[in-house]
């Protein structure tokens, strides 16, 4: 999160003759499609994790698949790294440029090619924004289910590369469950179709493999997603709990009770307070934890479920339950949750958003440990998260201008992720490993598993040109990370002592 080299020596072993490369690329691209001057490249130096910055060698912004393919071929021939970029909202540094590489922007691939209401599919280019798909489908009473909070900005290509999730993924699945077909360009210039509009496709499930692969296996140039009919009815309720533990138990009890809500989100007291100060959603600021639960489906079913959920919440010790009466109130219940990040942003000059996922049954215990760990680092942590999925988003508050705070925030982040792994969870539920969590990958995976990942990567990209240095750590990196671990005699700290 500070200005220092994030790449390791083995990630930057390329020898690129930039003038020769420009000469090769120039004739392939439209005049503005190749950015070489520093000011132009500056605009791409970071993604949503703005503290990680790196100027790319060049930026290529093709307009057609043939142009993109030609760029990849030339990069492969000349051993030039390529980092694909959609909208650049990644929170893990996934789209962070490579110092010796071409940043391949897919922003110009922004056309919706087809909405087929009869077959309930949308065929789109990778740079199309997530929300734009639902907007185009809306006249037919359809929508695209995965709804990351960044949906007005993030691209569908980036969603696939990160297997993005959202509030409604509890019931409707992640990106991987909603994409039917992809067209992928390999670094060698092959154009291959993965998946199919028919259920299943012959051979290995490469569609699932490429989903969540963080731009490491190929460049996505076309996508077919499935659309869902708008839910017939929706109900939203909000419950206050006297303790975070009780809220955590209520989440598990709802799911165990056989109800799958469309969304089940939780906020702790600092988050409730921040949201309330920010947009006055009418939240109960006395509550230690607030649960927002959305139920959708046919009217009879939703009515039945709402009664069931209410009684479970009461049994679990909710001291206030409110069911939204109309659309306006439903929107208001959600408004605080949706504005939580900017609201928290007002509490401190900087915040750092984590993304671990844990088995739901450990929610209460893990939230307690997080507050203890935060206190030990002298920092505050605010929790707003996808409780139904067990996907935590602790927001660590800090002030980057105060010496040492950033490092403490990063150390705390690392400890939280390792805590997630310890209770049987994972270091990332939806934001990806990128550059940010690459050291924690050494905690989650054993060397043999990492070697299996390298072998898979090499099957797609034998020269290791796509997004080098991200997502999967080298054994050298882990060895160094591990040595740190031993020398300091405590849990490993991320991002310290990089070379």
């Amino acid at each position, binding site marked *: 999160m500070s200005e220092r080299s994030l790449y390791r020596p083995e990630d930057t072993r390329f020898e690129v003759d930039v003038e020769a490369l420009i000469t090769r690329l120039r004739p392939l691209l439209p005049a503005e499609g190749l950015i070489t001057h520093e000011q132009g490249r500056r605009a791409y130096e970071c993604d949503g994790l703005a503290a990680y910055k790196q100027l790319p060698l060049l930026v290529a912004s093709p307009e057609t698949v043939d142009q993109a393919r030609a760029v990849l071929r030339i990069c492969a021939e000349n051993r030039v790294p390529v980092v694909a970029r959609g909208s650049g909202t990644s929170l893990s540094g996934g789209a962070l440029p490579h110092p010796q590489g071409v940043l391949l922007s897919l922003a110009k691939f922004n056309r919706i090619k087809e909405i087929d209401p009869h077959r309930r599919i949308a065929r789109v280019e990778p740079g199309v924004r997530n929300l734009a798909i639902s907007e185009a489908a809306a006249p037919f009473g359809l929508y695209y289910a995965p709804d990351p909070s960044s949906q007005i900005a993030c691209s569908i290509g980036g969603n696939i590369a990160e297997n993005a999730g959202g509030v409604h993924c509890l019931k409707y699945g*992640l990106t991987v469950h909603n994409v039917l077909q992809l067209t992928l360009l390999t670094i060698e210039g092959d154009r*291959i*179709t993965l998946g199919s509009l028919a259920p*299943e496709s012959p051979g290995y499930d490469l569609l699932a493999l490429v989903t969540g692969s963080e731009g490491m296996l190929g460049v996505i140039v076309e996508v077919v997603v499935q659309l869902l009919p708008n839910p017939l009815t929706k109900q939203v309720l909000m419950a206050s709990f006297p303790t975070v533990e009780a809220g955590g138990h209520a989440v598990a009890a709802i799911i165990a009770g056989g109800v799958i809500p469309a969304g089940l989100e939780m906020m702790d007291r600092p988050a409730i307070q921040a949201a309330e100060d920010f947009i006055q959603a009418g939240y109960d600021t006395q509550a230690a934890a607030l649960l927002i639960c959305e139920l959708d489906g046919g009217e009879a079913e939703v009515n039945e479920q709402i009664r069931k959920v209410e009684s479970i919440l009461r049994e679990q010790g909710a001291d206030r339950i409110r069911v939204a009466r109309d659309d306006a109130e439903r929107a208001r219940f959600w408004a605080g949750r949706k504005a939580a990040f900017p609201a928290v942003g007002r509490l401190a000059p900087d915040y750092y958003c984590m993304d671990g996922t844990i088995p739901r049954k450990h929610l209460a215990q893990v939230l307690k440990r997080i507050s203890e760990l935060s206190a030990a680092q002298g920092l505050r942590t605010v929790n707003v998260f996808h409780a139904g999925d067990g996907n935590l988003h602790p927001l660590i508050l800090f002030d980057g201008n105060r010496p040492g705070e950033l490092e403490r925030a990063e150390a705390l982040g690392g400890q939280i992720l390792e805590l997630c792994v310890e209770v049987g969870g994972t270091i990332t539920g939806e934001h990806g490993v990128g550059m940010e969590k690459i050291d924690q990958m050494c905690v989650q995976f054993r060397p043999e598993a990492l070697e299996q990942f390298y072998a898979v990567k090499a099957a797609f990209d034998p020269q290791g040109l796509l997004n080098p240095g991200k997502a999967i750590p080298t054994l050298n990196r882990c060895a160094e990370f591990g040595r740190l671990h031993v020398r300091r005699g405590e849990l490993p700290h991320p991002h310290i002592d990089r070379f």
Partner: protein
Amino acid sequence: MHTSSDLTAEIAEQVREASGAGLALEIRGNATKRFYGRQARGEPLLLTEHRGIVSHEPSELVLTARSGTPLTELARRLAEHNQMLAFEPPSFAGEATLGGAIAAGLAGPRRPFAGSVRDMVLGVRIVNGRGQVLQFGGQVMKNVAGYDLSRLMVGALGTLGVILEVSLKLLPAPQAEQTLTVNEPAARIHELTEQWLRTGVPVSAATHDGTRLYVRLSGAASSVAFGKRQIGGQNFGPAERFWRELRDHRLAFFTCRGAESLWRIVLPPAAPPPDLPGAWINDWAGRQIWLRTDAEPAHIRREAQRLGGHATHFRGGDRTMDVFQPLDAPLLRLHQRLKHAFDPAGILNPGRLYAPL
């Protein structure tokens, strides 16, 4: 009483030895799907004794079990907690195992409405072709750490790794279930199902046997009752048995005669039925056609492809030929490289999926 035993070390050792010697292994559960895929060859590697439920957390909707565990054992355990495997894996004749169900990736009538096998896979433990025991994914609903090698195992027919353990997402079992029959032609199956779904009818299966349309409704009692009012039709009594026999291919339809063999054709939504000779059952609201025919394989594949789908020579015929739709050159090359990445000696179920894998 169910036995539970962990043979990880023995299995890994057997693979390591075979890998060193370059000897092919035929990975085998209870062999209920031995007819499926291309002809099996190699020394049998038996997984039936590697069995048992490792963990089941009802409130997590997650189950982890060893690959040799019979599906019937899982179904019994889940039923006690009103939960289910939403993809309705077939058992065919006998006690199918979990490992075989995942490796084959086949799903039953509920698939288009509740999700496929791979949709429910959260994590796996495998032995790769080098004999290394590896763990990918986990027991949580969302996990994007590392490449998704868990879902890659689904449908790979054991050619990338021996599946040791699988973690699956479960769904609550429906409170109520009812099957109706409707006198409508198969050509309307997609349109009708869509219409029902969009009005809130909880359809969980839609099948046409050439005579009538069978619709299963699953959900809260109130929504099943609502569905029945919307659809009309006749109540179908022996429903549970019908869906089980369809899933397990025990309906009379599935018996081939003479030179016939059984084909599975999957199609995009709303595709017209394939123009092919033979007898058929139309499942998955028109997206999966079971075809009993003696037509030429090449002809069947061309027709499936023309409609935007693909065809599998499911049962019978020449199992030394391609049974799955052939892959085009760049895709096959990628498959070969992936196979090599997991199983460089080429010992795991060689040739079962495609000849070069």
